[in-house]
């Protein structure tokens, strides 16, 4: 149970819940699993935790009325109460004109997203991994703070129309921020994957962050303005997710999205970014390994959002797809930005004067009409001169749109899986290359280190 319900256990629990239903329709969304994490700061473990839980959301339908109730109590009484409560609540809700019929049985791709090495990441293994990093920092005379998280579990969906979906996964993330004792240097490194064995080893992670921290001392204060930048894969990952969140067909059709066309309609079929950009989702991609179904039980296919710079797809929920006469396009399946074969160093070598950006932080929407975002560089901003990194630069605030950045593309490198979640832990799977972009807009200096 600690690692989530098995397929048989999940099916059994779903069937027990559905058997209680007296509504016109019923769906169960079940998640179960264990979250283990270890934090460290000042070169020692600070806190940690191991939590196991299982939660079911029961959605009942009475005619076109519907409501849902969530519980984590699964004895007979708990099951009876959650079903009764959802039916009572559904009976009180007004009719939903946008309700779609429950999906019947579906066929899903198998996504093998569990790995023995990841499942073995218990408190003792995590502590050992952290100790390697903390000892490296102590030996180097720097101060490390970081986070090692492992999430393992299963999700299942079943409904009264005969659908059953089940997916198991394990995923880990290890991120590290190293600061020099004088507070004048800060460097970051991170790694994430479903397979712990394919993640950057702790000693290498420490070395990367320590090197960045030392190199980021005594930064030069440059004038804000437009700079050529090499965005490391993590920084690209920070930006690219913003684009996907805006890819909602309904908002575009309603005229309240960057992807709405002036005068009506959407930008589907339009060239929106540089023709070298292809952005897709694919749950079965060996480096994405996301759930093969969404919350309704709809299979998540490989979806190309942008192909050679042309907007090919926006996400349609089932209602909006039906209304517009198209097939539904679910969100999900992680995110992959296709790239080339160039290494990051090869991109740097192409720059006569520019900046190397380690990662971006506190990114918030400023204007949805232009997909303008603001945020800051963090934990390693460096000057590139004549094809090589020459010195540290004081952090900048940027005001930029990922669409403009992807139009100002100069070169594209080799994609890698990144730990792009701002929280530094497990998040959606993102595989992106480093990018060389011209005229990236920085608007003010930040003294933050």
């Amino acid at each position, binding site marked *: 149970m600690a690692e989530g319900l098995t397929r048989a256990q999940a099916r059994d629990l779903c069937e027990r819940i559905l058997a209680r239903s007296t509504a016109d329709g019923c769906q169960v969304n079940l998640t179960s699993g264990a*979250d283990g*994490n270890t934090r460290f*700061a000042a070169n*020692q*473990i600070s*806190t*940690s*935790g*191991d*939590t196991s*839980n*299982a939660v079911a*959301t029961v959605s009942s339908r009475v005619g076109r009325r519907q*409501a*849902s*109730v*969530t*519980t*984590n109590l699964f004895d007979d009484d708990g099951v009876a109460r959650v079903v*009764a409560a959802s039916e*009572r*609540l559904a009976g*009180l*809700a*007004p009719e939903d004109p946008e309700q779609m019929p429950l999906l019947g049985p579906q066929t899903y791709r198998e996504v093998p997203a569990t790995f023995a090495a990841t499942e073995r990441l218990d*408190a003792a293994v995590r*502590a050992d991994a*952290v*100790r390697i990093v903390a000892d490296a920092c*102590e030996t180097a005379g720097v*101060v490390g*703070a*970081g986070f090692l998280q492992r999430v393992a579990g299963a999700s299942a969906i079943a409904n009264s129309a005969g659908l059953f979906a089940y997916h198991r996964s394990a995923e880990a993330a290890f991120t590290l921020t190293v*600061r020099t004792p004088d*507070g004048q240097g800060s460097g970051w490194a991170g790694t994430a994957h479903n397979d712990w064995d394919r993640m950057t080893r702790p000693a290498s992670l420490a070395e990367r962050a320590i090197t960045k921290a030392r190199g980021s001392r005594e930064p030069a204060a440059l004038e804000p303005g437009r700079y050529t930048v090499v965005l490391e894969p993590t920084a690209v990952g920070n930006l690219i997710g913003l684009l996907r969140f805006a890819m909602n067909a309904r908002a575009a059709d309603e*005229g*309240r999205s960057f992807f*709405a066309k*002036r*005068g009506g309609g959407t930008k589907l079929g339009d060239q929106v970014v540089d023709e070298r950009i292809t952005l897709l989702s694919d749950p079965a991609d060996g480096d994405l390994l996301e759930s093969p179904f969404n919350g309704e039980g709809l299979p998540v296919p490989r979806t190309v959002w942008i192909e050679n710079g042309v907007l090919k797809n926006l996400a349609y929920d089932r209602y909006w797809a039906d209304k517009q006469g198209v097939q539904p396009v679910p969100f999900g399946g992680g995110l992959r930005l296709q790239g080339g074969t160039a290494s990051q160093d090869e991109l740097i070598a192409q720059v006569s004067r520019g900046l190397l950006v380690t990662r971006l*932080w*506190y*990114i*918030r929407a*400023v*204007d*949805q*009409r*232009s997909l*303008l975002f*603001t945020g*800051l560089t963090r934990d390693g901003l460096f000057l590139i001169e004549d094809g090589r990194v020459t010195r540290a630069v004081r*952090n900048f*605030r940027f*005001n930029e749109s990922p669409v403009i950045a992807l139009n100002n593309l100069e070169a594209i490198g080799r994609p890698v899986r990144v730990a792009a979640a701002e*929280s530094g832990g497990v998040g959606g799977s993102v595989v992106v290359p480093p990018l060389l972009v011209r005229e990236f807009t920085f*608007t003010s200096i*930040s*003294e*933050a280190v």
Partner: protein
Amino acid sequence: MDRRQFLGTTAAGFAAAAVLPPPQADSAIRDLCLHALDAAKAAGAGYADVRIGRNRSQSVATRERRVTGANESETYGCGVRVLVDGAWGFAASRELTRDAVAHIARSAVAQARANRRATRRPVVLAPVDPVADGRWQSPIEVDPFKVPIEDKIDLLLRANEAALAVPGARFVNSSMAFFLQEKTYASTDDVFTVQHIYRCLPQMSVTAVDPRAGDFQSRNSAEIAPMGLGYEWVTRADLIGNAPRWAEEAVQKLSAKSVEAGSYDLVLDPHHLFLTIHESIAHPTELDRVLGYEANYAGTSFAAPPEAVLGKLKYGPEFMQVQGDRAQPGSLSACGWDDDGVAPETYRLIRNGILVDYQTTRDQVEWIRPYTGRTRSHGCSYAESWADVQFQRMPNISLLPGERDLDVDDLIAATDRGIYIIGRGSYSIDQQRYNFQFGGQVFYEISGGKIVGMLKDVAYQARTTDFWNSLDLLGGPRSYTLNGSFNDGKGQPSQSNAVSHGCPPARFHSVNVINTGRYRG
């Protein structure tokens, strides 16, 4: 005790039918708590605390004339935290049997032993006053879980209708959410408390669209704060009465003048300024950030190191007073005891413009004692739920009003060239809290002491201490208002905290304003 008995003694019903008892020290839960503490001690813990929680929520969401979601949730569980030779361990589970809580207590101890190998300086806990049987409940007047859901849906749909009646208003989203955390806490330091903490969040947003210009603008219910109150707060929020004004302002924004970038005096409404306080005062004074414990996510702080800044850093003008508390009635952070079992203090973080203290928990006091002389925690420990380990979170952090009886009209009348900003908008600040950029909901141009029209595309960008030292006018006690942040993220894994910030309106001299609309093609 099995789960059946637990339910029978704690929840007289479920979902909408539940009858909520006043906080009570249920003997079966108390027994489970003590059993977990005994198991932890037997396994070698030098200290242990346990939280058994029942988390309940209800939410209703609508758009235009349709209900998009009606949801309830009720989950239970137990979390045990232990210290073994100065190293922390924490484990949690939804299983609420004697065997299960003893098992997680032993798991926490095993984890602490593993962590001890990577511990250099052992944790030292500041003293806490014993509490034999403490009870606390949010000061609600109307239990939101007893109000029929039909009434809530009806209110939201009527508010939507009122907004849609305004010509040009195209889309409306509205929602209300209610939360109840029933928390029983016990520790080996002889603290036992039961608390029922309520929170509510009514919200609304209206969008106007001009398809020919490819423009759209939204106005949300920025003045309606999330609060630690009951359904009476939703009633007082008067969504139906306010909706037409919010809709009109969304429409007005389409044709508002785009701001000319430059330097302006800013008159900031309390429903905007609270978030600036949150980001630029409350976060930098979290002691864990100051000492590097949040460096990998939330960041560190410019207000460091303590020995260099306490009693010295001039945060703002001499009339600037900032308070930390968990006591203001109806505030989001209010409680009787924190998740260390400490009764929180009301205290000054900034006195006469000078930084004098930080936010602390029991395991942080030892770090700061040499510089503050304080030997006790301020009571800032909090965990999002039983499933999460507690750590230092901000209490309510509030800017106290000035002595003169001024209100926002007085501030505007005293301003020659400025912008009046209402409501929270886009906000971003660096990881040491120096450089920030904030937008808002609505902006008005002030000229010659009068509002002369609406502006759009406004954001201001500043350095924290420059900004606060430019504070030159402060509203009086009658203009002091609470607003709050309902989902403040911090920690790894990230936990959400709800916190209020009180302030009067205030004026800031000569702040850099940028135009955010200039990127539109």
